């Protein structure tokens, strides 16, 4: 049964650039896919993974040029076909699943129209037969109440549900192959698990092969039989999943595996290379930063103490909408002690970032709260100078490297503009400080003159760290600082943050949706769900042996990267998955309960 389906030989796809140069998205890449096989194509951003899928379906951008090689489907060279010849391939023999289900579906057409047009294009079913088949497909894709969904529009359904509808469209003609391009990246972890379960089940029934394009090694570990590792368009390594994950032979794959944060044990540093700046500059920066931190607080006293924190967002009535209240955070209390890292984990919409933003003063909490910082209630801060000192003592490392720097200021000005505006530093002092801080976070001081767009995402986050440090803060709120970064860059950045914390004795509040990252960074952790803390305690307890069913559910749903156990196909056959999804994006309590129950069986 190991009949070959897809053969990619020596494929090179190039894009001519505006400046006359040529960018090779894929460079002399070869791969094989057999019928019914699940093959992973992994790599970080810019690896050219998506280009392979698009080439197979003839969906490359107009200006893309196939320089060498090609893709064959059952020995037919599809990359040589004309546009009209793809009609028999697209949807019919090869299904496609897009990264973001919310944008893959047309917002102004109903779900029914979009499924039925695919059925009518690729099968001989018409009219009511096509409709009946659409309902059947939705049922197979485990969409609850399939009849009702046909008349709905995409925005009325959750992301997970939309992705199931995309699945239903992709399998409608029983294709030989499905290309799944980051199919769960846009989804929360509990939804991801259920959605992947469904995908594997659907394809196994019909012996459909999958090319799974992803950056997530956990998903690869759980799903794929065979894996190709790409970097900058070139093949780095290939092999059976277990072998590549467990014993990578190439330096890059080794680094990649080492950079993946693990949930099962904590490491001091990730084994990835990370540059440090010039020693004397770093020392100057550290001397500056340490010069104010005499009164970091007494041992045993919390630096920050939060009581009864709640936040209700109310949208005002406008011409188009009636007013509505949304409780983002309800009644959260906790302490953070000097020098420790406190973590908050939760899925999107759990209110975890809102907690941090209220502590920083970017949101005003609902009345009845108390925030004590360095032993003083912040309400008691009256004078302008006191308020400013307080404000600057709490800083933030933001989530999105592409919007957290002012694009119209140099890196150096981004770091020290405020200190100059307040008259704290003169022009020359500011220039020196920004250079020293750049070196401290591992960037050359000369690059302080450059504008933000000249830096990569990871470098921008480093500049953001330097900016936060410039105020000599005691407390830094880290708002998913690495969620937008590739895994190796994430590892370097997390290493840097650990080093800085050790040297400066910083107190961190670290928010993330990624349990493994929290495990690596935090001493204690709170788990939040729909605005409430469901469980709190030491990481070694909460993320290893949680008490609360929701935390158990999160842990169970997390794709495990466990090379030492070898390739674990998902145990979906044991799970009669009827994962219910409602309109809201978050799983309901009963969902989580049922997931956790299943996982304990």
């Amino acid at each position, binding site marked *: 049964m190991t009949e070959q389906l897809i053969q990619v030989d020596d494929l090179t796809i190039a894009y001519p650039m505006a400046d006359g140069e040529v960018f090779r998205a894929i460079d002399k890449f070869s791969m094989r896919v057999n019928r019914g096989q699940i093959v992973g194509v992994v790599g970080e951003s810019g690896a050219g993974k998506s280009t392979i899928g698009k080439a197979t379906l003839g969906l490359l951008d107009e200006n893309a040029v196939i320089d060498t090689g090609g893709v064959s489907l059952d020995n037919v060279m599809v990359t040589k076909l004309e546009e009209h010849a793809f009609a028999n391939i697209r*949807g019919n023999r090869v299904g496609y699943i*897009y990264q973001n289900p919310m944008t893959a579906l047309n*917002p102004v057409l109903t779900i029914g129209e979009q499924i039925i047009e695919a059925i009518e294009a690729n099968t001989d079913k018409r009219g009511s037969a096509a409709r009946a088949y659409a309902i059947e497909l939705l049922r197979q894709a485990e969409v609850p109440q399939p009849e009702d969904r046909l008349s709905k529009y995409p925005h009325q359904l959750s992301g997970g549900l939309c992705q199931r509808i995309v699945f239903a469209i992709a399998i409608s003609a029983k294709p030989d192959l499905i290309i799944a391009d980051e199919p769960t990246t846009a989804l929360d972890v509990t939804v991801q698990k259920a959605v992947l379960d469904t995908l594997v089940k659907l394809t196994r029934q019909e012996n459909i092969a999958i090319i799974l394009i992803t950056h997530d090694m956990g998903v690869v570990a759980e799903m794929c039989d065979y894996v190709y590792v790409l970097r900058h368009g070139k093949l780095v390594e290939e092999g059976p999943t277990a072998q590549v994950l467990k014993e990578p032979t190439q330096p890059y794959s080794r680094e990649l595996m080492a950079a993946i944060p693990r949930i099962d044990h904590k490491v001091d540093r990730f084994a990835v290379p990370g540059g440090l700046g010039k020693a004397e500059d770093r020392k100057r920066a550290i001397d500056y930063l340490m010069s104010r931190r005499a009164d970091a607080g007494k041992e045993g006293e919390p630096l920050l103490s939060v009581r009864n924190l709640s936040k209700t967002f109310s949208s005002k009535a406008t011409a188009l909408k009636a007013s509505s209240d949304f409780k983002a955070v309800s009644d959260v209390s906790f302490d953070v002690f000097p020098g420790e890292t406190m973590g908050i984990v939760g899925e999107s919409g759990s209110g975890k970032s809102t907690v941090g933003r209220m502590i920083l003063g970017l949101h005003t909490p609902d009345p009845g709260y108390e925030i004590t910082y360095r032993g003083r209630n912040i309400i008691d801060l009256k004078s302008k100078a006191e308020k400013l000192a307080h404000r600057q003592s709490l800083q933030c490392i933001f989530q999105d490297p592409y919007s957290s720097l002012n694009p119209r200021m140099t890196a150096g000005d981004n770091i020290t503009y405020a200190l100059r505006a307040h008259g704290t530093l003169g022009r020359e002092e500011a220039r020196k400080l920004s250079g020293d801080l750049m070196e401290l976070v591992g960037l050359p001081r000369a690059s302080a003159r450059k504008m933000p767009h000249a830096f990569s995402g990871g470098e921008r986050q480093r500049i953001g760290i330097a900016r936060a440090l410039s105020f000599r803060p005691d407390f830094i709120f880290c708002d998913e600082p690495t969620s937008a970064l590739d895994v190796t860059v994430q590892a370097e950045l997390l290493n840097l943050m650990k080093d800085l914390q050790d040297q400066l004795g910083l107190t961190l509040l670290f928010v993330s949706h990624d349990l493994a990252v929290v495990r690596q960074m935090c001493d204690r952790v709170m788990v939040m769900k729909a605005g409430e803390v469901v469980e709190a305690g030491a990481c070694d307890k909460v993320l290893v042996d949680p008490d609360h069913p929701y935390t158990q559910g999160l842990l169970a749903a997390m794709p495990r990267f466990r090379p030492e156990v070898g390739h674990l196909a998902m145990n979906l056959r044991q799970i009669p998955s009827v994962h219910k999804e409602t309109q809201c994006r978050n799983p309901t309590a009963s969902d989580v309960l049922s997931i956790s129950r299943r996982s304990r069986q």
Partner: protein
Amino acid sequence: MLNFITRRLGQSAVLVLVMSALVFVGMYVISDPVAVLAGEDFTEADRQALAAELGVDRPLIVQYFNFLGNVIRGDFGSSFVYNRPVMDLILEKLPATLEVAFLAMFIGLVVGIPLGVYSGLNQKKPATKTISFATTVGYSIPNFWQGVLLIMLFAVWLQILPASGRGDTVEVFGVGWSMFSLNGLSHMILPALNLAIYTICLQARLARSGTQEVMYQDFMTFARAKGISRERIVRRHLVRNILIPIVTITGLQLGGLIAFATVTETVFSWPGIGKLLLDSIHNSDRPVVVAYLILITLMFVTINFIVDVTYALLDPRIRYT
């Protein structure tokens, strides 16, 4: 939806009220109607009598409320120049403006949208370059000069179309329409074309940029990946999406056409409300100007309202509550 409609109607009423006050106060400042109407031989007593007759001797606020009360009863007063009720005057001239504006709109949509979609879909074809240059030129020629050129070309040199006037009209529902007689229609062609050229260019540019934007959306690639035909992708996925901005602009554009009719009607001596407005401004015929502006505001408010409702019908993401 009902909630939305009531709120929108309330807002519209406030808008019309504010506009009426602005217009009324503004017009009060421009000129002294007594000076306009008074003859050479008028004595001071005659002038005062005239002012009392016109009601302009009372305080502004009283005048405004009197005026508002009359307006609600449909009475905008009488024209100083024609000495007839303003409402009759406007209603008499309105059909002439409306028939030209609607004909222009029709031509604009039917020609403009297909041109725009075609050039958005075929960016590299030579026809696209021609279309895009032609629309830029059309967009750049000021309306009035375009009218002058049309007259020169068709009326002076070629002498195939009349340059001014409405021609023969046919009475339908008690009003005269040019479009029902051949002679009237020939008079309509140039003014309608004059208004339509701008509309064609605008709609073509709009449809083109809409098409280009929608073309690169994920769902368009996904629709291709589903294996459905190109024709169906354009007809359903693309057009449904670009219709949304087009409806909005078309609503505003209709208002713009009626406003720009002032220019076209002046160039072609077309006896519509636009020409009436300009003549009244030149003659300081205050009641006509005020009535025109208030009625126009009312019309825009209505058009905007219809656009909003249509918008909700076209875009399922918008649900008014």
